[in-house]
């Protein structure tokens, strides 16, 4: 009863970090309702150890559906399997990550099973009187926070922004069960088939999932200068982001674009270099834990949302900063 469910994501048989973040979210909600936390894993040939780790991170039950056609997300198939499980077990809440997977599958599923769905939530809570899920999300470019309910439809579904919550520490004493769900041939759907996959220039971790993002903007002046951003990201162990201006000028590719028409991210540290901070850009970073700006203009918008700002010529500052990070990194 009142079960909280999450959809765990995997890539190449390995669970993604965001799956554990979702469990932490779900655990808190399940504890409030004094109910169970279940998670669904759709995949192919996933190691028992991987499935068990979900239990160690907060799940009571893991529903695992295995089939070669589940290796990659295919929206129609994923939605069919989930529709079946939801029909069978009637969870109270179903959460997925606001990733390309979650944001494709859940809206497709919401229509199939006729329930509501709230996108890209940053905060979830249980309403005391009703036990309903309160889903809070930034809207209109992060300028307002809207709290949304699904009062009469079940399950209550939401996608949750990656990095908006910390995963629980592994607790190997936790117990739970893995339920293997038998494959139903009716779930085969060949309308969309995955042919191949290529990683983008060896970028192992995505912008949305990065702890540290270093972004560059118009202040860099030239494409060649953008490598300063790459070096800085490298030496901080972060990913490279870019403002729309920088992407439009071809200094970075679109997957790096942060902001309203690019990605909305919540890293631990967002370091904005030469970015004035148009409203659309700020919309994409407002939920970052810390924001640091390096900018020549002390009146730049970005300073309004920053925790720390270095105001000066970035071409004078960056080489010095890189040198410093280089030496400190060496001590490690």
């Amino acid at each position, binding site marked *: 009863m009142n079960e909280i469910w999450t959809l765990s994501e995997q890539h190449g048989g390995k669970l993604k970090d965001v799956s554990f973040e979702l469990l932490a979210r779900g655990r808190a909600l399940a504890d409030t309702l004094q109910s169970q936390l279940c998670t669904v894993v759709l995949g192919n040939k996933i190691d028992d150890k991987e499935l068990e780790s979900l239990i160690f991170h907060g799940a009571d039950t893991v529903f695992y559906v295995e089939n070669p056609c589940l290796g990659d997300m295919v929206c129609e198939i994923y939605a069919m399997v989930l529709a079946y499980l939801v029909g069978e077990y009637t969870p109270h809440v179903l959460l997925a990550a606001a990733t390309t997977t979650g944001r494709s599958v859940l809206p497709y599923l919401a229509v199939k099973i006729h329930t509501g769905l709230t996108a890209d939530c940053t905060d979830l809570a249980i309403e005391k009187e009703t036990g309903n899920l309160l889903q809070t999300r930034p809207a209109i470019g992060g300028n307002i926070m809207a709290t949304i309910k699904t009062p009469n439809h079940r399950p209550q579904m939401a996608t949750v922004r990656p990095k908006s919550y910390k995963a629980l520490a592994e607790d190997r004493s936790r117990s739970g069960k893995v339920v293997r769900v038998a494959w139903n041939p009716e779930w085969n759907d060949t309308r969309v088939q995955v042919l191949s996959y290529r990683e983008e220039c060896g970028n192992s971790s995505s912008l949305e999932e990065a702890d540290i993002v270093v972004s560059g903007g118009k202040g860099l*002046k*030239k494409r060649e200068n953008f490598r300063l951003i790459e070096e800085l990201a490298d030496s901080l162990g972060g990913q490279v982001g870019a403002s729309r201006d920088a992407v*439009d*000028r*071809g200094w970075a590719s679109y997957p790096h674009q942060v902001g309203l028409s690019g990605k909305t991210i919540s890293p631990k540290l967002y370091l904005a270099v030469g970015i004035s901070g148009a409203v659309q850009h700020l919309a994409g970073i407002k939920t970052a834990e810390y924001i640091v700006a390096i900018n020549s203009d002390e009146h730049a918008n970005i300073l309004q949302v920053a925790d720390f700002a270095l105001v000066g010529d970035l071409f004078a500052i960056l080489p010095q900063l890189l040198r410093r990070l280089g030496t400190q990194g060496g001590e490690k």
Partner: protein
Amino acid sequence: MNTYTKVTPEIVSELSTIVGNNNLISDFDRMENYGHDETSKEEYGHMPEVVVMPQSCEQVAQVMRLATRYHIPVTPRGAGSGLSGGAIPLFGGIVLSVEKMNKVLEIDEKNLTVTAEAGIITNELNNQVIEHKLFFAGYPMSLETCFLGGNIAENAGGGRAVKYGVTGRYVLGLEIVTPDGRIVNLGGKVTKDVSGYDLKQLYIGSEGTLGIITKATIKLLGLPTAKADLLVPFKTAEEAIAVVSVIMTKGIVPTSIEFMDRTSLQMSCNYLNETLPLEKVGAMLLIELDGSEEKQVEADMISVGDLCEANGAMEVYIAEDKNTQERIWSVRRNIAEALKVYSPVQSLEDIVVPIGSIPLVLPKLTMLSEKYGVTIPCYGHAGDGNLHATIVKNPESTMEHWHEIEPMILRELYAFIVTELGGKISGEHGIGIKRREFLREVISDTEYDLFCALKKAFDPQMIMNPGKIIRIQ
């Protein structure tokens, strides 16, 4: 040659009692930004001896009285976005920055005026009045940085001058501090005024050589609610230019008619990673229309578009959606920056000719570029006859060669513009230091004498931004 008093530590401390310690800069590193404007720092830059940032007109007056007493040159400064070296302290001395006098004092909705201090960012001023559905129609193109005071001192033009005219048209009143430290209010909120000499008009465009503008009352207009842009490619620059006068004589007055030649377009598009269809395009016009009636603007847009099509346009692109408008204007606005990235050594020109003569300018530019082996991309406010031909150094040639040919090209160009076409060497950027010697060559002795007499009458000690427009004897 005029000899000025050096700024001593004692004078610095006297200045700091006037403006306060926090509003004075005397260490070398921090003064560097005040030693140049948007012109080449290497070529025109000069360090000040001290920078003061007064917070009131009274403080400005006190600084000027001190400067008069000690005979120290004072260079007034706005945002430093000027393009002729007007804010550079040629003789050192004091740079007086109005950056801390940046308040809007009154928005008078009854009289449709706004009164503000000289150091307000013009864009910021406009944002404030837009909330009252009003706007300052004379405000120029360097939207995000320039100050009101600087705009008036340079009588800045910009993109909308075809319909609305330039800054000076909207200045109703000025508060001025004279070189000897007196405060005078000129004009007011009236639209007509023949009560004696029009001193207010004299200060507009005087490049800070006659006094310091500390406050201005600006006439506002009702904010147009409808806007449409046309982007029109032509096979040749000549065809594009020829259309300008056709449009202008049809009774529709566009807000702006901007011209961009192929090189300018290509550079800007490369810089922005924009892909406008440029195949076989020799030049484009960017035409903006505005008004209070959407239907009227739409009808005008179609009339203008039809005219273009009838006069050789290869296609007529339109932008009614704000997003699209931003996209095409961005190409126009980024030309200067793109050219700088391509070759930082260049001379950004500001020639202006009667609009009927525009077609004659382009062949001359082609001739000069061939003769001297330089590129001369050309863009600008075609509707005003104001073109920003930019003489760009060939990246392969030496600096020595550049220094040798640059004045030769300019001389030849200016002589042609002024004597053959009845034009002027600067439409909106000003003379400053950059064009001072050239100005002398293209104006008559009488005109020059009158300039000198005027300067002497207003600033007998020659301490007010000396060395600009005219030489210091």
